[in-house]
């Protein structure tokens, strides 16, 4: 049986031990936090890749992406060819006051035009300023870090796996042709 009052002593010991240990406080404005890889801070737009397919705007659960565009006709590349029409981006804006940081737009973009950046210090005193227009979204691209390396035991990336399979297949076919010859 425990001594009477041993619980009280234990309580005192816990607080005293905590006092001698390092604190866990994050000194945020003085010291920047160490964010984990793939942190979702802000979305950057690599507008050179954007084809105005509108997938991101349509998939967005909050409808916080605004896209305006118009079509231009491009003269034929070779003489006698056909004229092509092309989408030109007029406006691309994300309203971060509405955004819930789900990242669906980044996932859904087929042309890798949207990226997560870990930057998070873009609070504003006016809520309208939280709508970042395309030039501001383009600026965030400079803060996008390189993708973190895969885990050592991770599955092979899809692109590399596909390329390797294709290469192996070609090699096998080449071998068979040599055998036939």
């Amino acid at each position, binding site marked *: 049986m425990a001594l009477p009052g041993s619980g*009280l002593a234990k309580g005192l010991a816990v607080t005293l031990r905590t*006092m001698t240990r390092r604190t866990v406080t994050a*000194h945020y404005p003085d010291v920047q936090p160490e964010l984990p890889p793939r942190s979702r801070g802000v979305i950057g737009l690599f507008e050179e890749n954007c084809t105005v397919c509108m997938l991101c705007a349509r998939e967005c659960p909050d409808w916080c992406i605004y896209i305006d565009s118009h079509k231009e006709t491009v003269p034929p590349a070779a003489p006698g060819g056909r004229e092509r029409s092309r989408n030109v981006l007029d406006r691309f804006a994300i309203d971060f006051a509405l955004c819930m940081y789900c990242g669906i737009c980044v996932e859904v973009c087929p042309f890798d035009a949207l990226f997560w950046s870990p930057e998070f210090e873009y609070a504003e005193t006016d809520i309208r300023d939280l709508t970042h227009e395309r030039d501001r979204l383009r600026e965030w691209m400079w803060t996008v870090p390189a993708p973190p390396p895969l885990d050592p035991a991770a599955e092979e990336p899809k692109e590399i796996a596909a390329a390797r399979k294709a290469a192996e297949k070609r090699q096998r076919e080449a071998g068979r042709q040599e055998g036939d010859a």
Partner: protein
Amino acid sequence: MDVLDVAWRLLAVLLAFLTLPLLVGQTEHKVMAHMQGRVGPMYAGGFHGWAQLVADGVKFAQKEDIVPADADRGIFRLAPAVALLPYLLVLVAIPVGPDGMVGQAVDAGIFFVLAVMGVGVLGSLMGGWASANKFSLLGGLRTAAQLMAYELPLLLAAASVAMAAGTVSLTGILEAFQWWWVPWQIVGAFVFFTAGLAELQRPPFDAPVADSEIIFGAYTEYTGLRFAFFLLAEYAGIVVLSALTAVLFLGGWHGPFAGDLGWLWTLLKTALLAFVVIWLRVSYPRLREDQIQRFAWTVLVPLALLQIALTGVIKVVIQ
């Protein structure tokens, strides 16, 4: 004793009264923070937030002084002073070092000190009654109940020391002090310190203020400087209680080199006890009102009586 001497002594006491409670308050900020794995105030004053309480004081001074419409105005406004000033008076009588290093040696020291300390609690009672607020009234009544319950063990424990020394003068008690009094009076020390904590309404005996339950009890309606005075009274109370416990039970200025450094020993023991007060606050949850009462009547009072019996027996044996 000429006028200049008196003036010097009073000035020293006033200075101690103005600085020591703030020192304890700042220590509480920091110690409590580190005991919870935090860092506490870091900005005010530049270095580790040393001026946090100064900043708090400036903030309190800027606030509007509100008196509720239905409140008993005179009593409501007087209460903080009643809560705070007794501790200043008590400090005058507490001996700091040997050879008359005391604001004013009072012959009936223990009586004076305990009686005046009891007055301090009346401040909360007045505030609670005059606020015209049920939370305040609840707090005030709890304060009253706590005062009734804990004044008795406090007095009994102090009486034990007075019996051992054969005098009720604080300086006289210190002159008669022997080192073996510490183990002899240890139960009394425990009772005195615990009952004192309860009188100050410090956690774990803070049911009368209980911010999360009855919204700071008697202080609910107070704002600005008057509220700050109540808070200051709490920290002044910690200083007084720690100093009294050090003087009565831990030998005050007794220690190596007591002739020159006696005052340092008193301060050191007081600081150590003040740390314990903070430590207890961080470690223990608030006791329920009935637990507080039961603890006083079924644990502290019997223990105090036991201590008095022990003191009496040993006193007779050694004579």
